[in-house]
């Protein structure tokens, strides 16, 4: 007991006396750990941004798209819609949406535009990570509106001649029997110079917009299911919808989220970890360097301690612990720096992919790796002087 406490007291005394050296070690290791942890965390966030970008375009894992058509006759859009809705109800799929691409006439102040429109259901917003910059995405309540709701892009709003939604802008849509629609949300343009585009709820679309014969007007169905249920979902979609739509219909189901991204992820992770390890090795080198430079002075002290009755085991333990305590402290500081830096850095502008919705929490694995690495470095950097100290003869050490 006194031996252990004595070694602790001794290690603490050494840390206190060698403040400058400890501080230098601390800085070196802390910076290295901060860099490694930060790079790993940034890597995670970049991956998340990349994933979100791909999910916005093609849906989250696992998203299936079902297209139905007939090779012999025109498929009845109403019957197909009914079959899709029934399927969604039967299996109580919360995240499902009909999707119809078409155009609709919109009477802008300057001219009537044929605006590209996507008729969707409210869950489509979540499924494709649609985050309106003004107003909001559709809710179930929007289906009951007398004036259909529109979520439009910025180009649409510009063409409409309004700056924001404060005046509840309305616009006439449709051809023969136009209806006054209300713009309830605005999404960012996908690229500069985009044309006006709009989302409308499927129910409103069916009610107000006459089918455009140039477009294939039978809706498609998108469902988002947990990835682990993907196989079952695909099987049921195929079985039930083929049966529901009858012999004349072809049903094509394909998974449209960017699955297979794991391989990219793995390589990315490998590169990021590689960089982190390199940075950490640089930190370790500086620490070993400092340890080696100070080993001279320390050997003499160790010799003196040997004369007090310090066994080689005690000397070894004492020096190792001193190095470990210092580097673990440095590791904690480093992880702290990394957390603060990653939380406050303008990551979104750095990545340049726009806003991230689900900013991943600071990766615990990165923090743990940083701490473990710091400890390992401490052990390694302490091992060298500790081994030298134990091997040197006390008399030589005293005379050093």
């Amino acid at each position, binding site marked *: 007991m*006194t031996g252990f406490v*004595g070694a602790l007291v*001794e290690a603490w005394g050494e840390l206190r*006396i060698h403040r400058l050296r400890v501080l230098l070690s601390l800085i070196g290791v802390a910076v290295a750990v901060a860099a490694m942890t930060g790079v790993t965390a940034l890597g995670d966030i970049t991956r998340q941004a990349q994933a979100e970008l791909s999910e916005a375009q093609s849906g989250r894992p696992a998203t299936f798209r079902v297209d139905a058509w007939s090779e012999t006759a025109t498929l009845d859009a109403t019957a197909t819609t009914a079959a899709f809705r029934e399927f969604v109800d039967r299996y109580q799929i919360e995240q499902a949406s009909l999707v119809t691409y078409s155009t609709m006439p919109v009477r802008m102040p300057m001219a009537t535009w044929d605006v590209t429109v996507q008729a969707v259901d409210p869950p489509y917003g979540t499924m494709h990570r649609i985050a309106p910059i003004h107003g909001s995405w559709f809710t179930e309540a929007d289906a009951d509106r007398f004036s259909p709701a529109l979520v439009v892009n910025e180009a649409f709003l510009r063409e409409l001649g309004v700056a924001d939604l404060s005046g509840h802008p309305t616009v006439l849509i449709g051809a023969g029997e136009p209806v006054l629609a209300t713009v309830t949300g605005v999404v960012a343009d996908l690229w500069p110079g985009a044309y006006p585009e709009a989302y409308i709820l499927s129910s409103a679309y069916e009610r107000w917009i006459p089918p455009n014969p140039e477009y294939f007007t039978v809706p498609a169905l998108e469902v988002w299911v947990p990835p682990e249920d993907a196989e079952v979902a695909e099987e049921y979609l195929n079985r039930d919808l083929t049966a529901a739509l009858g012999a004349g219909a072809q049903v094509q189901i394909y998974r449209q989220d960017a699955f297979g991204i794991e391989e990219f992820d793995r390589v990315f992770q490998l590169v990021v970890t590689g960089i982190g390890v390199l940075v950490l090795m640089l930190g370790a080198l500086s620490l070993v360097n400092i340890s080696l430079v100070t080993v001279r*002075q320390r050997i003499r002290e160790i010799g*003196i301690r040997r*004369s007090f*009755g310090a066994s*080689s085991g*005690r000397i070894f333990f004492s020096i190792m612990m001193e190095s470990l305590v210092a580097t673990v402290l440095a590791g904690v500081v480093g992880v702290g720096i990394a957390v603060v830096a990653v939380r406050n850095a303008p990551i979104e502008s750095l990545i340049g992919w726009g806003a991230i919705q689900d900013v991943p929490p600071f990766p615990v694995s990165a923090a743990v790796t940083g701490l473990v690495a710091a400890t390992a470095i401490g052990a390694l950097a302490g091992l060298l002087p500790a081994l030298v100290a134990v091997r040197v003869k006390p008399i030589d050490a005293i005379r050093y």
Partner: protein
Amino acid sequence: MSLLELRGITRTVRLPDDSRLDILRGVDLSVGAGEHISIVGRSGTGKSTLLNILGLLDAPTDGEYLLDGTPIGRLGNRRRARRRGDDFGFVFQQFNLLPGRTALENVIAPLLYARGRTFWRRHSIAASMLERMGLGDRLESKPEQLSGGEQQRVAIARALVRTPRVILADEPTGALDVDTGAEIMSMLDEIASDTGAVLIAITHDLAVAARATRHFRLGEGVLTPITIAPRTSGTLAELGDPLTATDVVDPEAVPALAEVEAGPA
């Protein structure tokens, strides 16, 4: 029974050119409790090696070392380290205070290896030891703030704080002026006598050596008993120049020993 007994101790090192150098050649020494021993000899004659072997800092190449009748050679490293801490106190020529630590911390340092009450009361024990050495007002001073004499007093306090049974002093006055050296030696003698500890001092100052109850000379690795009359000064030249002798020096055969008589073992 002797407290310390050396029987035919030799210490040989192998040089880089693979030749052997005999530092100690068959040293016999028997020391009883409370004795004050001085060993004189020129530099490079193996004095420090002998002291290190006595203090369990070094192991002999051959021969037997008995401490309290126990052969030290049979003890493991750990037990040897423990006995070193428990039984020996070292006073070095260069003081060897731990740099950056205060006088108090230096004296506490050996107590970190003690057990029980001594360990837990280390602060008060160290402080009272320093007070006894007349350094009660310098507890918080660091070595660089102390004079040479004060540093050596701290070193002595540190050597004695665990009340060792044997005090090993390697040229304790070597780095001090004559007056301070005399003062330090008086202090060391006094405390050793008070505690009944054996004091073994290595020196090349005959005045320091003369204070001991028994005297030895180490030349060419051989320990020879001599007698040194009390004096206030004196140099090794009076003992002749053993470094030039190729054979073991027989003190009786050295004519220059006018005041220095060869004594019985």
